[in-house]
């Protein structure tokens, strides 16, 4: 992928990479993509109604990145993400109920109402946080990979962050040490083109972000993040490199978010045009996968409708669960500060 001066996002074509996946796998991907999409749409709605507070960063448009990459992991691998973390949590198997309840700040939430949208955790699934400081979790992930190497397990640690994080010091410090110490980590930059409202070209002197890995003699790959099969393929290679050779990889996933950075900014009109958003919507990850499945006879419109009804029901159930769940007890204010409670 060397040489290009502009991000080479695949546009237009709906043809995915060689899938190498059977109907069951495809259906599982499609269900997850649609679940995340419906979950996020509903979360946005609940936010507008004042049911969800604070910041809320939606993943709409980027779903194939989390779904395709997390599918390549083992149950005992570690995952950290930035604050745009709902999709990854769902792809990792956190229940829609526990994630929605966390967005509602309820005691039944995956972080017991103390973390909120930006800090989803489920230690039992190796899902070790949504983190709120840009780039702050990149070294944490290397630390988890260090621990795997230290203990001589063959676990892999995976870190998701936006393209704006590649300009912060912790990214460079961590990639250097991860390569120097041969840590079993996969660093996934989800390049959706904008850090809040700042286009990549206004923030980075280098537009091919995967090339940042060259500074650290690290393996890299540019991936079509709208194609779940391309994501899975690249992730399989990176995870294999980590698990078998104890070597890190930087994956640049070219993707796009259709919604604003958070709930407070419009999807378009200030830093990007409506036409641009519409153009990217033409190559929606759900559309790409559905086109493939239809052409292969794996699903038809009725099947899609049935699957959609299934995930809509799941999200509705999550909303009801979150609505009806109790707030944390007042004394919870003082717990979990220190190991002994306080």
């Amino acid at each position: 992928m060397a040489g290009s001066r502009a991000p080479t996002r695949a546009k237009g074509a709906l043809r995915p990479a060689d899938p190498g996946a059977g109907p069951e796998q495809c259906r599982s991907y499609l269900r997850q993509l649609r679940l995340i999409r419906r979950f996020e749409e509903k979360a946005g709605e609940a936010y507008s109604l004042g049911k969800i507070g604070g910041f809320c960063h939606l993943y709409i448009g980027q779903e194939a990145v989390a779904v395709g990459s997390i599918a390549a992991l083992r149950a005992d691998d570690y995952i950290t993400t930035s604050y745009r973390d709902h999709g990854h949590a769902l792809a990792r198997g956190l229940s829609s109920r526990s994630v929605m309840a966390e967005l509602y700040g309820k005691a039944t939430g995956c972080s017991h109402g103390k973390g909120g949208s930006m800090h989803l955790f489920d230690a039992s699934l190796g899902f070790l946080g949504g983190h709120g400081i840009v780039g702050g979790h990149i070294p944490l992930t290397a630390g988890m990979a260090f621990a795997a190497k230290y203990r001589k397990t063959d676990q892999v640690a995976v870190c998701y962050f936006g393209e704006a994080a590649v300009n912060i010091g912790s990214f460079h410090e961590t990639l250097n040490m991860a390569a120097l110490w041969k840590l079993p980590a996969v660093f996934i930059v989800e390049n959706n083109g904008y850090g809040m409202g700042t286009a990549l070209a206004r923030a980075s002197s280098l537009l091919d972000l995967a090339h940042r890995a060259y500074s650290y003699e690290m393996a890299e790959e540019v991936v079509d993040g709208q194609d779940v099969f391309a994501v899975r393929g690249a992730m399989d290679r990176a995870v294999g490199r980590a698990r078998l050779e104890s070597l890190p990889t930087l994956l640049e996933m070219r993707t796009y978010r259709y919604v604003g950075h958070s709930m407070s900014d419009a999807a378009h009109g200030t830093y990007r045009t409506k036409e641009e958003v519409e153009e990217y919507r033409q190559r929606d990850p759900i559309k790409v996968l559905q086109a493939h499945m239809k052409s292969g006879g794996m699903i038809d419109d009725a099947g899609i409708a049935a699957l959609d009804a299934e995930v809509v029901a799941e999200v509705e159930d999550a909303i009801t669960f979150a609505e009806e769940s109790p707030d944390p007890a007042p004394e919870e204010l003082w717990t979990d500060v220190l190991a002994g409670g306080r």
Partner: protein
Amino acid sequence: MCSREGGDMAVLTYRDALNAALREEMTRDDRVFLMGEEVAEYDGAYKVSRGLLKEFGPLRVVDTPIAELGFAGIGVGAAMVGLRPIIEFMTWNFALLAIDQVVNSAAKMRYMSGGQVGCPIVFRGPGGSALQLSSQHSQAFESWYAHIPGLKVVAPGTPADAKGLLKSAIRDDDPIVFIEGEMLYNVKGEVPEGEHLVPIGKADVKRAGTDVTLVCHSKTVTVALKAADQLAEEGISAEVVDLRTIRPLDTETVLNSVGRTHRCVVVEEGWAFAGVGAQVVDEIQRRAFDELDAPVLRVTAADVPMPYNKLLERAAKADPAKVVAAVKRVLYLPG
């Protein structure tokens, strides 16, 4: 080496007491590792980790690039999944580059995960001023970290406490900011051999007295003890309370002492504004107001960046003469 009731004692420097704590804890628990700049092949910038690479190998004694933010975060990540990292900062001045990881990651992890993910890590290294290192290398940051719920802040003033507190810190399940006195590394003292644990959160009366309480920690323990010697020559009996841990603060020991002496001077290496002493004074005025016979005074660093010039530097630091003068003021004696 001499023998004492309750176990063998060795005379060790503060540096070697810390080294013994590291060695003993790394021997006891193979989850414990040491990471930082120059800790391995160079034996430590201040030689605290002398011999550890040879004994424990490069997996457990890890030299890092100069990248405080990165390796502090790597330590936090390793702690989140069950290792027991000791992250050495060559000095706490450089740790400012890593403060995001200490404050935003280590201190918050347990709370924001709803109690699922702890962070048993020790961040350690020298703090305070040394000799003529000027502004960027002469700062006491205890109060910065003590401000943060989720952290514990420890600052030993003697070799025995250095060993006992570091061993306790390594065994603690919470993130610990362990600030060593840069000027204390060569100070010698009796240190119990083997298992010697000093509890975190307990102050220690280093010298009993009746007329005034001197509250201190880290290097100012030495300053306060010297001041107490001078005061004794003038017939004034000073009690020296070494906080040892800044957070959680052992308010009871301070209040017990002030309840007997009714006068207090708080001594610290840091600046006065929002300093450790400000918190101590707040506790005393709220909880022992009626015990006080004079306002509590503070001896701190001058409210300026540390100068290089030797005379100016001396003028900027807390010293025994300043403590003696403050004590005379709380006793309403002529200076």
